[in-house]
């Protein structure tokens, strides 16, 4: 009982002193660190290509969180596998674990880029976006053009990744990019909006 009383008094002392010792935060929680943002853009550490993202998803990269910032209707039409729908107006109300790698994408990349700035302003540091958005996913992952002058290993790697996601690689130089292997599959995309 004596120990419990001592612990109680200690807790009370620590708690009652708390208002007078200042903020426990090391840095301001929110706000734009313009230098860090400029550095990230300059170094290219602000984005990830659709193909790189596909490899991360296939390899089940730990902590990866893919976020579709388009409208829920567009998300229902088609979305990148493993992605979750988080429209841009809900981003500010969401929270992100510090050990997660957040990857944002939109239809063509503009909205994802804007969402990237929003998240950086909210203090999320491990955030990237896909510059070409879903259009790049279609062109570079689902229906990639296998380079005619590429090495067989490189072509096989691209084709394997495409087929992993149910896509159909095309062969460069053929009429309109002949589909390699099976008939062309995947959702019908068209470039529109952001």
């Amino acid at each position, binding site marked *: 009982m004596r120990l419990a009383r001592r612990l*109680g008094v200690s807790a009370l002392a620590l708690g009652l002193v708390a208002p007078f010792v200042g*903020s*426990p*935060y090391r840095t301001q929680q929110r706000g734009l660190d313009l230098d860090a943002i400029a550095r990230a853009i300059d170094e290219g550490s602000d984005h990830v290509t659709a193909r790189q993202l596909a490899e991360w998803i296939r390899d089940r990269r730990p902590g990866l969180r893919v976020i579709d910032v388009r409208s829920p209707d567009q998300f229902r039409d088609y979305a990148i596998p493993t992605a979750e729908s988080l429209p841009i107006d*809900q981003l500010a109300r969401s929270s992100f674990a510090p050990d997660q790698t957040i990857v944002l994408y939109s239809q063509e990349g503009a909205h994802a880029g804007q969402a990237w700035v929003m998240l950086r302003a909210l203090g999320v540091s491990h955030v990237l976006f896909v510059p070409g958005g879903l259009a790049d996913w279609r062109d570079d992952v689902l229906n990639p053009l296998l380079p005619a002058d590429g090495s067989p290993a490189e072509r096989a790697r691209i084709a394997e990744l495409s087929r992993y996601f149910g896509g159909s690689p095309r062969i460069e130089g053929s009429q309109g990019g002949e589909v390699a292997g099976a008939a062309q599959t995947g959702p019908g995309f068209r470039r529109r909006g952001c």
Partner: protein
Amino acid sequence: MNDLLVAAGIGVAFGWALECVGLGDPPKLAGQFYLRDFTVLKVMLSAMLTAMLGIFWAGRLGMLDLGALYVPETYLLPQLVGGLVFGLGFVLSGLCPGTSCVALASGRIEGAATMLGLFAGVLFIGLAFPAIEPFYRSTPRGPLTLQLVTGLPYGVVVALVTAVGVSTLAWIAKREAAR
């Protein structure tokens, strides 16, 4: 792998602590709902005070970056409903998820029954998720904390919660001593 080892170590220590205070015993836990036994409240309050004061002072002394802490999001209505369902299951079985593991490890059959119900519930929610997802994501309020809700400085919230917590613990101790 290291994370898993650390998690396993914390889990074992947590279970051991729960068993030590007798929270593997369903009647003891259910007693809280009937205000017969205040062990659950004492454990919860002391744990919350320890964590809150530990985080505040570790942050203030530069040992912990509070900005790196993950605060789960609040979804008001679904979490209220979830809390009610959780409470109903708690009082019916006399165990919560953590204490059901402890009860099972101590050889109590109630622990196994509760864990079975737990996994059945997880499976059911997982299968029904597409249907309930709109409700699951309704009334989002973001990562709410008492500071955000009240607008009070962090230190003031810490002082108020400490005062309420310690007073409640002192009241329980006095009540138990009078018996």
